[in-house]
Protein backbone atom coordinates (compact mmCIF):
# COMPACT_ATOMS: atom_id res chain seq x y z
CA UNK A 1 0.00 0.00 0.00
CA UNK A 2 2.98 2.36 -0.16
CA UNK A 3 1.64 4.70 -2.80
CA UNK A 4 -1.59 5.24 -0.88
CA UNK A 5 0.24 7.51 1.46
CA UNK A 6 1.12 9.73 -1.43
CA UNK A 7 -2.54 10.57 -1.90
CA UNK A 8 -2.97 13.68 0.11
CA UNK A 9 -6.19 14.81 1.59
CA UNK A 10 -6.25 18.55 1.14
CA UNK A 11 -9.74 19.39 2.22
CA UNK A 12 -11.78 18.99 5.33
CA UNK A 13 -14.21 20.84 7.46
CA UNK A 14 -11.61 23.48 8.28
CA UNK A 15 -10.94 24.32 4.66
CA UNK A 16 -13.75 25.86 2.71
CA UNK A 17 -14.78 24.65 -0.65
CA UNK A 18 -13.96 28.07 -2.02
CA UNK A 19 -10.35 27.85 -0.88
CA UNK A 20 -10.12 24.41 -2.29
CA UNK A 21 -11.66 25.21 -5.61
CA UNK A 22 -9.59 28.36 -5.88
CA UNK A 23 -6.46 26.40 -5.03
CA UNK A 24 -7.13 23.83 -7.69
CA UNK A 25 -8.23 26.38 -10.24
CA UNK A 26 -11.86 25.30 -10.24
CA UNK A 27 -15.05 27.21 -9.74
CA UNK A 28 -16.30 28.72 -6.50
CA UNK A 29 -18.96 26.92 -4.42
CA UNK A 30 -21.99 28.86 -5.65
CA UNK A 31 -21.05 28.16 -9.22
CA UNK A 32 -20.37 24.54 -8.32
CA UNK A 33 -23.82 24.07 -6.76
CA UNK A 34 -25.39 25.73 -9.78
CA UNK A 35 -23.50 23.32 -12.01
CA UNK A 36 -25.57 20.36 -10.80
CA UNK A 37 -28.46 20.13 -13.21
CA UNK A 38 -31.44 19.52 -10.91
CA UNK A 39 -33.89 19.54 -13.82
CA UNK A 40 -31.96 16.81 -15.60
CA UNK A 41 -32.07 14.55 -12.53
CA UNK A 42 -35.82 15.13 -12.19
CA UNK A 43 -36.58 14.19 -15.81
CA UNK A 44 -39.01 11.29 -16.09
CA UNK A 45 -38.23 10.13 -19.62
CA UNK A 46 -35.47 10.37 -22.17
CA UNK A 47 -37.14 13.03 -24.33
CA UNK A 48 -37.59 15.33 -21.33
CA UNK A 49 -34.05 14.72 -20.28
CA UNK A 50 -32.61 15.47 -23.71
CA UNK A 51 -34.69 18.66 -23.85
CA UNK A 52 -33.33 19.67 -20.44
CA UNK A 53 -29.84 19.08 -21.79
CA UNK A 54 -30.59 21.32 -24.77
CA UNK A 55 -31.19 18.74 -27.49
CA UNK A 56 -34.02 17.04 -29.37
CA UNK A 57 -34.99 13.58 -30.64
CA UNK A 58 -32.28 11.17 -29.51
CA UNK A 59 -31.44 8.50 -32.07
CA UNK A 60 -30.50 4.92 -31.48
CA UNK A 61 -26.90 4.26 -32.46
CA UNK A 62 -24.79 1.16 -32.85
CA UNK A 63 -21.68 3.27 -32.38
CA UNK A 64 -22.23 3.31 -28.65
CA UNK A 65 -20.84 0.23 -26.95
CA UNK A 66 -22.53 -0.62 -23.69
CA UNK A 67 -20.98 -3.34 -21.55
CA UNK A 68 -22.84 -4.61 -18.53
CA UNK A 69 -23.83 -7.95 -17.04
CA UNK A 70 -27.10 -9.50 -18.23
CA UNK A 71 -27.80 -10.48 -14.65
CA UNK A 72 -26.73 -8.48 -11.63
CA UNK A 73 -26.27 -10.45 -8.46
CA UNK A 74 -27.19 -7.35 -6.50
CA UNK A 75 -28.97 -4.22 -7.67
CA UNK A 76 -26.99 -2.03 -5.26
CA UNK A 77 -23.86 -2.41 -7.35
CA UNK A 78 -24.18 -2.89 -11.11
CA UNK A 79 -20.96 -2.39 -13.06
CA UNK A 80 -21.37 -0.60 -16.40
CA UNK A 81 -19.00 0.51 -19.14
CA UNK A 82 -19.85 2.83 -22.01
CA UNK A 83 -17.64 3.65 -24.96
CA UNK A 84 -18.67 5.90 -27.83
CA UNK A 85 -17.28 5.66 -31.36
CA UNK A 86 -19.26 8.73 -32.43
CA UNK A 87 -16.89 11.53 -33.48
CA UNK A 88 -17.06 14.60 -31.30
CA UNK A 89 -18.51 12.81 -28.26
CA UNK A 90 -18.46 15.30 -25.39
CA UNK A 91 -20.84 13.77 -22.89
CA UNK A 92 -21.98 10.32 -21.76
CA UNK A 93 -25.00 9.87 -19.51
CA UNK A 94 -26.36 6.74 -17.81
CA UNK A 95 -30.13 6.34 -17.54
CA UNK A 96 -31.95 3.66 -15.56
CA UNK A 97 -35.50 3.19 -16.75
CA UNK A 98 -37.22 2.12 -13.55
CA UNK A 99 -35.24 4.02 -10.94
CA UNK A 100 -36.89 6.86 -8.99
CA UNK A 101 -34.60 9.22 -10.94
CA UNK A 102 -34.07 8.27 -14.57
CA UNK A 103 -30.67 9.97 -14.82
CA UNK A 104 -27.96 8.26 -12.78
CA UNK A 105 -24.85 10.14 -13.93
CA UNK A 106 -23.71 12.51 -16.65
CA UNK A 107 -20.05 12.72 -17.61
CA UNK A 108 -18.56 15.65 -19.53
CA UNK A 109 -15.73 14.49 -21.76
CA UNK A 110 -13.28 17.26 -22.65
CA UNK A 111 -11.05 17.11 -25.71
CA UNK A 112 -8.13 14.76 -25.02
CA UNK A 113 -10.18 12.41 -22.84
CA UNK A 114 -11.30 9.15 -24.43
CA UNK A 115 -15.09 8.75 -24.69
CA UNK A 116 -15.06 5.69 -22.38
CA UNK A 117 -16.45 5.54 -18.88
CA UNK A 118 -16.63 2.79 -16.29
CA UNK A 119 -18.67 3.13 -13.13
CA UNK A 120 -21.18 1.32 -10.89
CA UNK A 121 -24.82 2.17 -10.44
CA UNK A 122 -27.81 1.13 -8.35
CA UNK A 123 -30.83 -0.48 -9.98
CA UNK A 124 -34.13 -0.70 -8.13
CA UNK A 125 -35.36 -3.56 -10.31
CA UNK A 126 -34.87 -5.38 -13.61
CA UNK A 127 -35.10 -2.85 -16.46
CA UNK A 128 -33.35 -1.21 -19.37
CA UNK A 129 -30.23 0.81 -18.81
CA UNK A 130 -29.50 3.45 -21.44
CA UNK A 131 -26.28 5.13 -22.44
CA UNK A 132 -27.07 8.58 -23.83
CA UNK A 133 -24.28 10.25 -25.75
CA UNK A 134 -23.94 13.78 -27.08
CA UNK A 135 -21.76 14.08 -30.15
CA UNK A 136 -21.44 17.22 -32.28
CA UNK A 137 -24.50 18.65 -30.57
CA UNK A 138 -26.76 15.67 -31.28
CA UNK A 139 -27.98 12.97 -28.90
CA UNK A 140 -27.70 9.24 -29.48
CA UNK A 141 -28.44 6.26 -27.26
CA UNK A 142 -28.20 2.54 -26.84
CA UNK A 143 -29.87 0.24 -24.31
CA UNK A 144 -29.37 -3.03 -22.52
CA UNK A 145 -31.71 -4.90 -20.24
CA UNK A 146 -30.12 -5.89 -16.95
CA UNK A 147 -31.88 -8.38 -14.71
CA UNK A 148 -31.61 -7.77 -11.00
CA UNK A 149 -31.97 -11.08 -9.19
CA UNK A 150 -33.19 -11.97 -5.75
CA UNK A 151 -30.36 -13.47 -3.79
CA UNK A 152 -29.20 -14.92 -0.53
CA UNK A 153 -30.93 -16.85 2.19
CA UNK A 154 -33.53 -14.21 2.95
CA UNK A 155 -34.69 -13.85 -0.64
Amino acid at each position, binding site marked *: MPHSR*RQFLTSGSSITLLTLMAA*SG*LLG*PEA*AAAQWNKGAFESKNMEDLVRTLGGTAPQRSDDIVFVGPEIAENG*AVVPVEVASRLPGTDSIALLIEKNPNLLAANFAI*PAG*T*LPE*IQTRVKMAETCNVYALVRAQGKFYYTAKEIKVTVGGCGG
Partner: protein
Amino acid sequence: MANPMRIRARADGDIVQVRVLISHVMETGLRKDAQGELVPAHYIQLIDVTYDGRIVLSAEWGPAVSRNPYLAFKFRGGAPGGKVRVTWTDNLGETQSYEASVE
Protein backbone atom coordinates in the same frame (compact mmCIF):
# COMPACT_ATOMS: atom_id res chain seq x y z
CA MET B 1 -9.46 9.78 7.57
CA ALA B 2 -13.23 9.75 7.51
CA ASN B 3 -13.50 9.50 3.75
CA PRO B 4 -10.42 7.98 2.20
CA MET B 5 -10.01 7.90 -1.55
CA ARG B 6 -7.92 5.61 -3.70
CA ILE B 7 -6.59 6.99 -6.97
CA ARG B 8 -4.61 4.86 -9.40
CA ALA B 9 -3.25 6.61 -12.47
CA ARG B 10 -1.06 4.62 -14.81
CA ALA B 11 0.58 5.86 -18.01
CA ASP B 12 0.71 3.60 -21.04
CA GLY B 13 2.55 5.62 -23.66
CA ASP B 14 0.63 8.85 -24.11
CA ILE B 15 -2.55 7.54 -22.48
CA VAL B 16 -3.17 7.65 -18.75
CA GLN B 17 -5.72 5.31 -17.22
CA VAL B 18 -7.32 6.70 -14.09
CA ARG B 19 -9.20 4.50 -11.61
CA VAL B 20 -10.79 6.08 -8.58
CA LEU B 21 -12.50 4.56 -5.53
CA ILE B 22 -14.23 7.04 -3.23
CA SER B 23 -15.53 6.39 0.25
CA HIS B 24 -19.05 7.84 0.37
CA VAL B 25 -22.41 6.56 1.64
CA MET B 26 -24.36 7.72 -1.46
CA GLU B 27 -27.65 7.63 0.43
CA THR B 28 -30.64 7.98 -1.88
CA GLY B 29 -32.96 9.50 0.72
CA LEU B 30 -35.41 6.66 0.04
CA ARG B 31 -33.89 4.01 2.32
CA LYS B 32 -35.34 3.29 5.76
CA ASP B 33 -33.13 2.45 8.72
CA ALA B 34 -33.77 -0.32 11.26
CA GLN B 35 -36.21 1.94 13.14
CA GLY B 36 -38.21 2.55 9.97
CA GLU B 37 -36.98 6.16 9.63
CA LEU B 38 -35.95 7.49 6.24
CA VAL B 39 -32.20 8.01 6.00
CA PRO B 40 -31.65 11.52 4.57
CA ALA B 41 -30.24 11.83 1.07
CA HIS B 42 -26.47 12.22 1.08
CA TYR B 43 -24.67 11.76 -2.20
CA ILE B 44 -21.92 13.20 -4.34
CA GLN B 45 -23.28 15.58 -6.96
CA LEU B 46 -20.20 16.94 -8.65
CA ILE B 47 -16.87 15.38 -9.35
CA ASP B 48 -13.91 16.83 -11.20
CA VAL B 49 -10.66 15.23 -12.21
CA THR B 50 -7.72 17.40 -13.19
CA TYR B 51 -4.31 16.55 -14.58
CA ASP B 52 -1.71 19.15 -13.68
CA GLY B 53 -4.53 21.65 -13.28
CA ARG B 54 -6.36 20.89 -16.54
CA ILE B 55 -9.79 19.27 -16.33
CA VAL B 56 -9.75 15.76 -17.81
CA LEU B 57 -13.21 14.69 -16.64
CA SER B 58 -16.13 16.23 -14.83
CA ALA B 59 -19.41 14.62 -13.92
CA GLU B 60 -22.76 15.21 -12.29
CA TRP B 61 -23.99 12.31 -10.20
CA GLY B 62 -27.36 11.46 -8.76
CA PRO B 63 -28.13 9.11 -5.86
CA ALA B 64 -28.11 6.09 -8.21
CA VAL B 65 -24.33 5.94 -8.29
CA SER B 66 -23.37 3.05 -5.99
CA ARG B 67 -22.13 3.48 -2.45
CA ASN B 68 -18.33 3.82 -2.35
CA PRO B 69 -18.27 4.96 -5.99
CA TYR B 70 -15.90 3.65 -8.62
CA LEU B 71 -14.90 5.58 -11.71
CA ALA B 72 -12.44 4.69 -14.46
CA PHE B 73 -11.52 6.51 -17.66
CA LYS B 74 -8.54 7.39 -19.89
CA PHE B 75 -7.05 10.63 -21.13
CA ARG B 76 -4.27 11.57 -23.54
CA GLY B 77 -1.29 13.76 -22.88
CA GLY B 78 -0.18 12.59 -19.46
CA ALA B 79 3.12 11.20 -18.25
CA PRO B 80 4.55 9.55 -15.13
CA GLY B 81 4.99 12.03 -12.32
CA GLY B 82 2.08 14.23 -13.43
CA LYS B 83 -0.53 14.97 -10.79
CA VAL B 84 -4.08 13.65 -10.99
CA ARG B 85 -6.43 15.38 -8.58
CA VAL B 86 -9.98 14.26 -7.83
CA THR B 87 -12.39 16.67 -6.15
CA TRP B 88 -15.98 15.96 -5.16
CA THR B 89 -18.82 17.95 -3.66
CA ASP B 90 -21.94 16.36 -2.22
CA ASN B 91 -25.51 17.56 -1.72
CA LEU B 92 -24.76 18.59 1.87
CA GLY B 93 -21.95 20.84 0.70
CA GLU B 94 -19.13 18.61 1.91
CA THR B 95 -16.15 18.48 -0.37
CA GLN B 96 -12.90 16.56 -0.56
CA SER B 97 -9.92 16.53 -2.83
CA TYR B 98 -7.13 13.99 -3.17
CA GLU B 99 -4.10 13.91 -5.39
CA ALA B 100 -1.96 11.09 -6.75
CA SER B 101 1.01 10.87 -9.10
CA VAL B 102 0.80 9.12 -12.42
CA GLU B 103 2.84 5.91 -12.34
